């Protein structure tokens, strides 16, 4: 029960800043994650070593990120030996990133990182992104030094003009240049205390940031392809190559079904994807629906002592007897829930089970 209470305390802290008016958040985010692979990552203060621990947490991060931001993209950059190189390009599919992260566990950590080079590499792609999307860089820095070929303060000015938001998670100690970098670009800078704190800080970056007034609002043209499942006996079925396999080294397989781009009829196996032939962004309606709970967030429930409750003491969601000291009630339908259900409802469900009967259409 201790962990549930602890979880409850953290949730209220994140809820306290939330008011009932939904804040506009960035929907389409382009995020580059820069992972430091210098010699300091072989340190064993995080088990088994910093690099393995970081990569493991990154896999969880990527999964959770695409869950909360379905139409966003992530790219991964590693920096070591005074150079920076791209591990994966900006893409909307989590599988590619996760396979790359799993392979990266074997990399040798050598040399010094280079903040300038990694930021430069990220900017090359980010500056071409359209204005209505958010451009973000998250740096996981463990070394206390950085080796830059040019003046990084000039680069910070460039980042500011390009409206790129840079945040840093430090694994060792606070470094002044990171403080200036994050302050000027509007990001956040934290240094971890231990592994669970590291996970918490990473997960903070999953929630979509509030939309800055400078981001443009525009209508984005998107396609909603149909999933066709054709069998060999269908006369109209034509086998086709999936366009997403063009990059992979394994040979492309012919398949009968798949998602067909409505504009150019190129085939893809998974969504969301940007059509390589005609450039149309392809999504499915549930992907957009995943972000709706950010638009209409669920109100925090009111806590009250259990003694004030009249009648049967049962949680209306899970039918358990209310044995805790406090119960939670929904402000609009006044149904009563236990601690576990309250946590579950706010973290995963995002809708009150009893309010649905009294709701009008959103």
């Amino acid at each position: 029960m201790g962990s549930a209470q602890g979880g409850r305390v953290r949730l209220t802290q994140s809820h306290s800043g939330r008011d009932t008016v939904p804040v506009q958040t960035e929907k389409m985010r382009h995020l580059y994650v820069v992972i430091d692979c210098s010699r300091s990552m072989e340190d064993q203060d995080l088990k088994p070593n910093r690099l393995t621990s970081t990569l493991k947490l990154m896999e969880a991060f990527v999964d959770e990120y695409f869950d909360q931001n379905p139409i966003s993209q992530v790219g991964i950059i590693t920096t070591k030996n005074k150079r920076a190189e791209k591990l994966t390009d900006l893409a909307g599919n989590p599988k590619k990133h996760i396979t790359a992260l799993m392979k990266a566990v074997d990399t040798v950590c050598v040399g010094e990182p280079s903040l300038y080079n990694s930021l430069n590499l990220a900017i090359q792609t980010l500056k071409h992104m359209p204005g209505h999307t958010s451009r973000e860089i998250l740096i996981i820095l463990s070394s206390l030094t950085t080796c830059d070929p040019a003046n990084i303060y000039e680069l910070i000015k460039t980042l500011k003009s390009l409206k790129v938001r840079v945040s840093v998670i430090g694994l060792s100690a606070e470094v002044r240049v990171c403080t200036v970098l994050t302050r000027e670009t509007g990001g956040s800078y934290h240094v971890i205390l231990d592994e669970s704190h590291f996970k918490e800080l990473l997960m903070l970056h999953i929630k979509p940031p509030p939309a800055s007034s400078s981001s443009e609002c525009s209508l984005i043209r998107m396609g909603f392809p149909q999933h066709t499942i054709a069998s060999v006996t269908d006369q109209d079925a034509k086998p086709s190559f999936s366009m997403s396999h063009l990059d992979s080294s394994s040979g492309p397989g012919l398949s009968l079904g798949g998602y067909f781009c409505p504009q150019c009829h190129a085939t893809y196996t998974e969504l969301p994807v940007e059509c390589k032939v005609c450039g149309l962004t392809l999504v499915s309606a549930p992907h957009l629906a995943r972000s709706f709970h950010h638009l209409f967030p669920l109100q925090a429930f009111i806590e009250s002592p259990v003694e004030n409750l009249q009648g049967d003491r049962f949680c209306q969601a899970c039918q358990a007897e209310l044995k805790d000291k406090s119960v939670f009630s929904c402000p609009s339908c006044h149904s009563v829930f236990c601690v576990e259900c309250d946590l579950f409802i706010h973290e995963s469900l995002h809708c009150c089970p009893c309010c649905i009967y009294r709701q009008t259409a959103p």
Partner: protein
Amino acid sequence: MSLMLNNAPCTPVSAQFTLSKCMDAVMVMGNAHMAMARTNKLAVIASHCQGSHFLYPSKSWSGGDGGGNDASSSGDGKYELLSAANNLIAEEIRNIMSKIEVTGNSTDTLLAGSLAKALCYIHRLTKELEVGQEIKSRILVVKAAEDCALQYMNFMNVIFAAQKQNILIDACVLDSDSGLLQQACDITGGLYLKIPQKVALAQYLLWVFLPDSEQRSQLVLPPPAHVDYRAACFCHRNLIEIGYVCSVCLSIFCNFSPICTTCETAFKIQLPQIVKPKKKKLKQPM
């Protein structure tokens, strides 16, 4: 261990196939599930237009220790748990049917609320397990009523929560096809079936929905339904293949418009570059 939850709408269906026959088939299915393994658990929820109600296990029933209770010991030597479950379900349904008044002509049930309660129940059971034990859960929805369009967003929230918890949602539809349930089954990996003959409900339930997800790969089951994932535009409710999405509120439009009707943001319009028409020299007629 597996847990199965069953939602049954309490709206009347056609004359030949009444609610009692439907509940009989459901009880057969529930008994079969509990008989498959000693550790299997069952919960039944009835969902009607004014709320959802747990039929089994019921709050007033302290399960497990009812020795010597007249209601649970049946004379025909049936396993006591099964007969207790049947009696309880029948009694609760009678209570509900007598209590709710059919107001108005609403024939749609709000399924999202019942699914949310089912998920909370599963979540509670998972928390009550000891460390190292696992419980595999799935939800079976038996539906006769029509979809309610109001619940789209809540329904999608519930579906994504179920997908994250690895809970399958199966659907057995009696009357009309339900687009929402088709999407739910596709996203969570469950089975969707529209029953051709309602009198054979028990057979379909036992054949298709009784085995759990691992056994299903070895059986020949009905093929997956084609799910229409096209979005409906907010202005006409037509299904569109290419549309315009507002970057602020994610509403979908079929035509370009300068202002989003949902969040009322004005969009930057890309004006086409004005090309000055070249003055053509008119040919003088000779």
